[in-house]
């Protein structure tokens, strides 16, 4: 008896994808396949029930090594097939019982996918994050108001605390300005919650975690705008990532 398999779905393209998608390996090492219906191409691969079935998924998604490996594999497939045209990415762990279920979903959601494909055509996603810049050493009054090392210590503590509070509120204001300004070069934008410093691997607090859908023609203009804004907003440090598959602009909770 052979093991039950599931169909893992990476994304959806128009009807001219086959050559690009064949051969490459995806999640779980299986070769990619395509399923066409309603003039759309679903990019899929087969995965085992033992590792990707419902019970296994619940367990594995809590395992960071597994999650990292799987997320990277899903992403790598989308990058490979996106080379020659728009591909609408699916959320991680979108699984179907069989090819017929994929085809029927494609037919049912054909209008949505066509709308998404035209939205992302010749456009890419870019990420912009802003961190609070480390505040400069606080200025402490040289005139002693009270005597003794204890009083001086408290004054220094207070000055340091105020400086870091100021740095944060200035950084938040700058982050808002940067977010709005970059929106003028983008078609759409979306905010993610700031990443916790521990998760982001960056000790400075994050004050902006944004994604933008930018026309490929304006990609240089966009990164130049990031560089210009970094110069005029010294209280934040900006980080640009991308181009990404348009993950942030195809789902139901996406803007637009």
């Amino acid at each position, binding site marked *: 008896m052979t093991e039950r398999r599931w169909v893992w779905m990476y994304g*959806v393209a128009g009807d001219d994808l086959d050559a690009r998608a064949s051969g490459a390996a995806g999640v779980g090492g299986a070769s990619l396949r395509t399923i066409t219906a309603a003039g759309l191409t679903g990019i899929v691969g087969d995965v085992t029930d033992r590792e990707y*079935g*419902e019970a296994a998924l*619940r367990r594995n*998604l*809590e395992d*960071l*090594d597994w*999650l*990292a490996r799987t*997320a*990277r594999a899903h*992403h790598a497939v989308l*990058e490979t097939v996106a080379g020659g045209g728009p591909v609408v*990415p*699916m*959320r*991680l*762990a*979108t*699984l*179907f*019982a069989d090819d017929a*279920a994929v085809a*029927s*979903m494609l037919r049912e*959601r054909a209008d*949505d*996918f066509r709308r*998404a494909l035209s939205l992302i055509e010749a456009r890419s*996603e870019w990420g912009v*994050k802003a961190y609070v810049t480390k505040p400069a050493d606080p200025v402490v009054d040289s005139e002693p108001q009270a005597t003794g090392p204890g009083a001086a210590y408290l004054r220094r503590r207070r000055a340091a605390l105020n400086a870091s509070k100021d740095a944060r509120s200035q950084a938040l204001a700058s982050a808002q300005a940067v977010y709005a300004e970059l929106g003028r070069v983008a078609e759409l934008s979306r905010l*993610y919650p700031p*990443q*916790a410093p*521990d*998760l*982001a*691997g960056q000790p400075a607090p994050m004050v902006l*975690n944004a994604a933008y859908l930018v026309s490929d023609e304006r990609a240089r203009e966009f*990164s*130049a705008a*990031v*560089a210009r804004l*970094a*110069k005029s907003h010294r209280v934040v*440090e*900006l*980080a*640009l*990532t*991308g*181009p*990404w598959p348009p*993950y*942030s*602009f*195809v*789902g*139901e909770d996406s803007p637009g």
Partner: protein
Amino acid sequence: MTEREYEPAIQGERLALVDLLDRVLAGGVVISGDITLSIAEVDLVTVSLRALVTSVSALMEAAEDTRENI
């Protein structure tokens, strides 16, 4: 800070895992209905993932080391 830092430089293996997880767990098309196994509780997974700060930090440090050795 120089303009060079705004050349995006993080593809492939060096791609930051947290940025990727933001997108693949909260972005992308969601199919719901009984023909899919797509996990509805993915938000819970994200929440509990974010609670695993210690292991993620360790993962990040490992990634950081790899990057420095390139």
